[in-house]
């Protein structure tokens, strides 16, 4: 079953009467448990594609169905719930709340979750331990290294147990060692059954995925499976 189904998605931005077309007629389907890398040069429309996929923006035309639910018809309340429950974001710039401890940052999605969440601190602590940060619970982003911050964002993306992880250039701000660590974490998440969509301009990083979609000038240029030997070569 397709978890993500995009049919003829177009997105254009209007700027002082000027219309810029960013995505043109993008159609792609992603199944549950897939590990998809989206590559392309900057300005190709990768981030816009991810914004639509993450329900942060609505397409200008076309149809987006996430987990069987047509997104275009949802109001702000329901869109927020989809973001909260089905999607975990990991950003290049980490996007942690400044001045707030790692633990509290990880808990953030649960602030906006429905119903009572039980012992949220315990869950956050477990996730931070899973990414190797059990000794950094009460540090603020400013007191953490880039790699540590990225691990906090991964823990945050997982706290509400979403089906999809959307990662936008997760290694972009990291040195190679931390980059490799992050990619290993993603590999493990795929093994646990998460669907991961990874956006990058780095072919090396993309090779971790089972499938690479190249975007060029707002259109899908190629969509191919990655052979097993290609994957092992990258590691």
């Amino acid at each position, binding site marked *: 079953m397709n978890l993500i189904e995009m049919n003829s998605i177009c997105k254009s931005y209007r700027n002082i009467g000027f219309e810029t077309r960013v995505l043109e007629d993008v159609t792609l389907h992603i199944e549950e448990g897939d590990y998809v890398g989206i590559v392309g040069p900057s300005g190709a429309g990768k*981030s*816009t594609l991810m*914004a639509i996929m*993450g329900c*942060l*923006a609505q397409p200008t035309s076309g149809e987006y169905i996430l987990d069987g639910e047509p997104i275009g018809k949802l109001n*702000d*309340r329901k869109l*927020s*719930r989809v*973001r*909260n*429950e089905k999607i975990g*974001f990991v*950003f290049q710039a980490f*996007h*942690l*709340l*400044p*001045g*707030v401890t790692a633990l509290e940052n990880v808990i*953030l*999605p649960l*602030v*906006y*979750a429905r119903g009572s969440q039980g012992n949220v601190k315990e869950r956050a602590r477990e996730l931070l331990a899973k990414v190797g940060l059990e000794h950094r619970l009460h540090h603020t982003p400013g007191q953490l290294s880039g790699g540590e911050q990225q691990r906090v964002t991964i823990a*945050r993306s997982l706290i*509400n147990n979403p089906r999809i992880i959307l990662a936008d250039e997760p290694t972009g701000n990291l040195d190679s060692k931390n980059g490799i660590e992050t990619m290993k974490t993603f590999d493990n998440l795929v093994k646990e059954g998460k669907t991961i969509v990874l956006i990058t301009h780095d072919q090396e990083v993309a090779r971790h995925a089972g499938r690479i979609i190249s975007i060029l000038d707002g259109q899908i240029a190629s969509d191919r499976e990655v052979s097993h030997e290609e994957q092992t070569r990258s590691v």
Partner: protein
Amino acid sequence: MRIFKNLGQALRGLRLNRGNTFLMTLGVMIGIASLTVIVAIGDGIKIKVLNRIANMGFGPESFSVIAGAGRMFFARSKNTTSMTLEDAEDLLALPTVRLVVPRQRKRMQIINKKEFTSTRVYGVTPDWQLARGWQMTDGDFLSDSDLDRRKRVVVLGATPARKLFKGKDSIGKMVRLQNNYYQVIGLLEEKGLTESGYDPDDRALIPLTTSMSRLTHETYLHSIKVVSLDSSQVPETMEAVRQILRRNHNLSVLAADDFRFITPEGIMQWVTESEQALNRMLILISTVSLLVGGIVIMNILLVSIRERVREIGIRRCFGARRSDITFQFLFESILVSLLGGLMGVGLGLAISFGLKRFDVLPTHITVEPFILSFVFCSLIGLIFGIHPARKAAFLSPEESIRSQ
């Protein structure tokens, strides 16, 4: 409850943005502080004035009739010569009247050798002291024999006594009014300045007969003080007084009174009216200063939101609804306003205590400013928070997450 979580996030937001939070509280704090101080001063003055009125012996059973029409304190009409000693005698004949004090008044120089001062000289009868309940610090008050014999004796208030004798014994000494010497026979107890600047001690009392025949050379009275037997009889006594005076003065049915009444209620009413005028001014000033405070909050919150676009984007990414963002910033605005109000009340109380402690102005602390500031601040936070909060909520999540 989701709304409590929003409140929690608002508290965290305020703590993390301490600088902005402090700046936002300033406007409201100053507004509420001035409100607190002005309310305290207003109440303090009112209490002190009421004490003074009681202190002046203007008991509830007495009132004054002043010659000449017009309003209570102001707008003296042209010199009215119609009120006479016969009027006073007729009034004393009324069954409900206990005392009548006819009075002449003139401001003039009073001289002791090289010292001189201008004071109000009253021609009065010995009943003046009974009607006023005013004690002597030294000597005796005017007697019936002083009145009968038109003696040139004077009882001094504390102010002229101090100016003429500089604290030295004055009993038995001679002071000069116009070209006649008067012997000082008594000193009145000091009452002190009123808040309006009126000095009740600035007076000299001589027998009414002496005043008429030797000083003013006039036979008409300036006023008559009437003390009824009981305060409940004041209205009917006033009406009876009115009838007698109108008859004595030959006023036609259509003519207006050529005299006016001063009653304790009248003074109270005047105080209340002044207080209401003060309150109106106060409300105006506070409204303006609190509006300014609200605008300060709104502007800083708008700037703060611009600084925190990324935070808003992050929250939206992880499931915050527009309503969550709205409530978070609305709570921040209300909390900041309440905090400013609390600080303002504190500052206002401190200033009020200081004013009282160092005798600058009388102040009286009531619970009013607390309630007022709580209500005002909540409203201001709400009203001036809505615009920034809505603005924050309607930022596009996609654009705000990308902003640098």
